[in-house]
C-alpha cells in the first residue's frame, strides 16, 4: 500500500509520532499531525476507513481527498470501474453503494465508511456472468467497451429502481451514462431483454 508515494517515510514518521495523540483523543476519527509541522505535511494525515467491497471487508487508510473511484483503482487495483471525465458527467465510474448507483468520481472515499460497495468485478457469480453482462454481450451493447462497466452497473439499478418499463424510460434513466461509440440502441435492447426476462438483478 502506498509504496509509490515519495514522501512515505515522512508520512510514516508523522503517523507514528501522532499515534499517542490519536490514542489520547480517541473519539477523533482522523489522525492529525503535530501543530508545528509544515502545513502540507501536518494538516492532512490519513483517515481510517472500513468498506465492504464486493463482499470482502477492507480496512484501509486514505487521505481525505481520495475519491472512491481512485481508491478502487489505485489502492485496490479494482480497475474495472473506469475514470472517464472524473467530473460526474459521463457515468463510467458508476458503482453501487448500499445498493444505489452513484458516480464514484464525486464521492470521497472517507465518506463511505462502513458502506457496502459493489463494482463491476462483484457483479458476476463466480464464472457465471450477471444477466445484464450476458445481455450486453448478446445484444452487442458496446463497441470500445470503456463505458461498459458503468453502463452495466447503471443498467442493473435502472431495472431495480423500476425505471426500465419502456425504451423512452430506459433512455431517460440511463442518461447519466455516456457512450461515445453510440451503442445506445443496443444498450436499450440489452436492458429491455433483461427486464422482460424477469430475472432477479
Amino acid at each position, binding site marked *: 500500500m502506498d509504496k509509490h508515494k515519495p514522501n512515505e517515510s515522512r508520512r510514516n514518521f508523522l503517523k507514528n509520532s501522532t499515534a499517542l495523540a490519536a490514542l489520547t483523543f480517541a473519539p477523533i*476519527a482522523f489522525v492529525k499531525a503535530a501543530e508545528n509541522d509544515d502545513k*502540507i505535511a501536518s*494538516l*492532512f494525515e490519513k483517515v481510517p476507513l472500513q468498506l465492504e467491497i464486493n463482499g470482502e471487508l477492507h480496512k484501509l487508510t486514505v487521505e481525505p*481527498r481520495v475519491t472512491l473511484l481512485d481508491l478502487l483503482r489505485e489502492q485496490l487495483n479494482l480497475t474495472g470501474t473506469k475514470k472517464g471525465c472524473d467530473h*460526474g458527467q459521463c457515468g463510467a465510474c458508476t458503482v453501487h453503494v448500499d445498493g444505489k448507483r452513484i458516480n464514484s468520481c464525486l464521492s*470521497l472515499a472517507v*465518506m463511505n465508511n462502513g458502506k457496502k460497495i459493489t463494482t463491476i468485478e462483484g457483479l458476476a457469480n463466480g464464472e457465471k456472468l450477471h444477466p445484464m453482462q450476458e445481455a450486453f454481450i448478446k445484444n452487442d451493447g458496446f463497441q470500445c467497451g470503456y463505458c461498459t462497466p458503468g453502463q452495466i452497473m*447503471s443498467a442493473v439499478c435502472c431495472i431495480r429502481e423500476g425505471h426500465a418499463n419502456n425504451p423512452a424510460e430506459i433512455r431517460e434513466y440511463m442518461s*447519466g451514462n455516456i457512450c461515445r461509440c453510440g451503442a445506445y440502441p443496443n444498450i436499450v435492447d440489452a436492458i429491455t431483454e433483461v427486464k422482460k426476462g424477469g430475472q432477479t438483478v
Partner: protein
Amino acid sequence: MINFDYIKATSTKAATDARVKNASSEFIAGGTNLVDLMKRGVAGPETLIDITGLPLKQVTTDATGITIGALALNSDVTENAIIKQKFPLLSHALNAGASAQLRNMATVGGNMMQRTRCPYFYDIALPCNKRQPGSGCGASEGYNRMHAIFGASEKCIAVHPSDMCVALAALNATVQVSDSKKARQILFTDFHRLPGDNPEQDNNLQTGELITSVHIPTNNFNKSYYLKIRDRASYAFALVSVAVALEVNNGIIKTASLAMGGVAHKPWRLTEVEKFLSGKSISVDVFAQAAELAMANAKTYEHNGFKIKLGKAAIIEALTKANA
C-alpha cells in the same frame, strides 16, 4: 485536489460550531458539486465538515404541509409517494435535473447550495467576480448563451442551475436554517439573491448557518407542470425552464404561481404574470399575453437573445400542458 482536514459532524451544533471555528471550511453532504469544484480549484476549503451523519433526512407531513429534511436525497424526494401525489411539480422538477446517479447522491440542501455552471466561474484561468471578486465578468462580453436575462448586474450575469429550486420557489416554500445559537426561517424566494455588487454571495445564509429542512405549505393547486428546455433530451442544464402551479375552477384561474429557471441568478418568480392570470379564463390568447408580460423586462446579451422567444414559447407550452 488540494488536501483538507476531514471532520464528521455528530450533531447539528457540532457542525455549525466547526464551521464557525474554521474560517476556510465547508459543509459537505452529497458532494456532487463541491468535490467537482475542489477538483477544478474553484473551491479549496482547508476543512470539510461531513454532515451526512446528521438526522436531517426525514420527510414528514402535517396539516400545514410537508417538511423535507435538508439531507433527503433528490432521488428519495422525487420518488416519495406523498410528494408525487400532492406536490408533483417538485417531483417532476427534481427528475428533470441531473442523472439517476447524481440524484442518488445529491441532497435537497446541497441542491440549493450548488454554484452556477457559468464556464467563466468554473475556469480558474478566466476572470469571474463570483469566484474572484474584482477580477471582472468574463461572460458579459464573452460567450453568454447560457446566461441571465433577468436581474443580472454589471458584475455578474450567471444563472442558478437548479430545477428543484424553481419548483420550490413556485410552491411558496420556506427554508429552515440553524446556527449554533438559533434557528430561523427564510422564504424560499428570499433564500437566493441577485448578484448586485456581491456576486460571490449566492444566497442569504450567514456563515455558520446550516440548512436543516424545507417546508412546502399545503396548497390548492390542481394543475401543475415543469417544462425544461435544454440542448439535449436529458441530463443537461436548462436553457430556460418554467414551473407552473395553478388553481383552476371551471376553466377560470383562481390563483397562479409561476417561476422560471435558467434566466436569473435565482429562481425567477413571475409575480406580474401571476396577478395577470388571476381571475382569467383559460385560453391560448391569455397564455400568450402572460408570456409577453413575463418577458417585457428581459435584458439579453450577445448570445442569449434567443431566450426571449424561447421563454415566451416555454411559458405558453407549460401553461397549456398544465391544463391539458
